[in-house]
């Protein structure tokens, strides 16, 4: 191939790859830090006002114009109301967020890490939060799952940006949260059983194959379609919200904006 074309592809894909950014914990800041702090606290207070002991939280880390159609957020995790011990020894109440984050050294792998709302929204491109508050009964099961560390048994460190939720080959942040939810519902960490249940009851988001996706797969280590068939399906914040809604397992399914506007997705 002409060297000039190769260079153009590499340069343009360097930007395109940001559009397919996965789940990373980052120090890179795009917004005013005080606004991030205020918004993070607003999200906590919203969930607290609903009495949420555990809720699903999502952020936007990529320009919305770059996202595939139907995808509104790029990273999803579960927030749990906790007693937080501070470095000075004092303890306070707030939400701790349990995330699947890609490893900084090798994006093909991931780890489960706990952070807090300001960390979660630090690298966001827009101050907008996706929030799903499960029913009290499911909240309780989620909390028990995490207290017993069963959520760690559900982690597959082999990361793929568009992992297939119907098998165990790879896992991204949103699929991980779905697995934690289902493990809580079905009271099992048997991955085969969980995937069978997912296949039977969960409707994933179809991502259409495109030239951009094909070229992204050539250059991005964390983007593969090996775990998919002819069609690509992945988990999203919206598909999780719809899944819980359709099974009468959620009370709130909303988007909270930085000006306090709540958009109901139910």
């Amino acid at each position, binding site marked *: 191939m002409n060297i000039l074309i190769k260079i*153009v592809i590499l340069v343009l894909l360097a930007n395109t790859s940001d559009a397919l950014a996965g789940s990373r914990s980052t120090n890179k800041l795009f917004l005013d830090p*005080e606004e991030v702090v205020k918004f*993070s*606290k607003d999200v906590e207070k919203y969930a607290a006002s609903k009495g949420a002991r555990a809720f699903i939280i999502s952020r936007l880390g990529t320009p919305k114009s770059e996202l595939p159609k139907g995808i509104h957020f790029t990273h999803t995790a579960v927030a*749990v109301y906790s007693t937080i011990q501070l*470095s000075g020894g004092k303890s306070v*109440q707030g939400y701790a967020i349990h995330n699947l984050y890609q490893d900084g050294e090798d994006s093909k792998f991931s780890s489960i890490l706990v952070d807090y709302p*300001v960390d979660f929204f630090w690298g966001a491109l827009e101050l907008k939060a996706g929030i799903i508050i499960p029913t009290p009964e499911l909240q309780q099961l989620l909390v028990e799952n995490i*207290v017993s560390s069963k959520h760690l048994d559900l982690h597959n460190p082999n990361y793929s940006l568009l992992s297939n939720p119907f098998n165990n080959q790879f896992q991204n942040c949103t699929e991980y949260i779905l697995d934690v939810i289902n493990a809580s519902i079905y009271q099992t960490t048997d991955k085969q059983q969980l995937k069978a249940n997912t296949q039977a009851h969960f409707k994933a988001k179809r991502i259409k194959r495109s030239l*951009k996706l094909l070229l992204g797969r050539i250059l991005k280590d964390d983007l593969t379609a090996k775990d998919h068939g002819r069609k690509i399906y992945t988990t999203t914040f919206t598909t999780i919200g719809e899944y819980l809604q359709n099974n009468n397992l959620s009370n709130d399914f909303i988007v909270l904006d930085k000006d306090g506007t709540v958009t109901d997705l139910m």
Partner: protein
Amino acid sequence: MKSIKLTFALIVLFSSSISLANSGASENISAASKYSVLSVSHGIKASGQVVSGVVAVPLIIVGQVGSVSLEAGETLMKNAIGSEELVITELTITADPAPQRVMQNTVDEK
């Protein structure tokens, strides 16, 4: 000529892919931690409200995990988790970076 046309087509095709990810208010902090940025921010610094969280323990009101009978569990769940508003600290809590990153930042700063 064919190569130039193809190159131009690719530029047009991917022109919408140019990410805004590099046009933020603050570029890669590199050695400076998030905590440092928060600490020097005028409004946040003035309030003295930035702290590091060491460990977070989920609050669970019901008895020991696995030890609650179904009947008792239903009653306890209704009492434990409802819609009553929860207390949230006004402090800004942030997690420290992983030890490897902290050590690397220490080495870089030296």
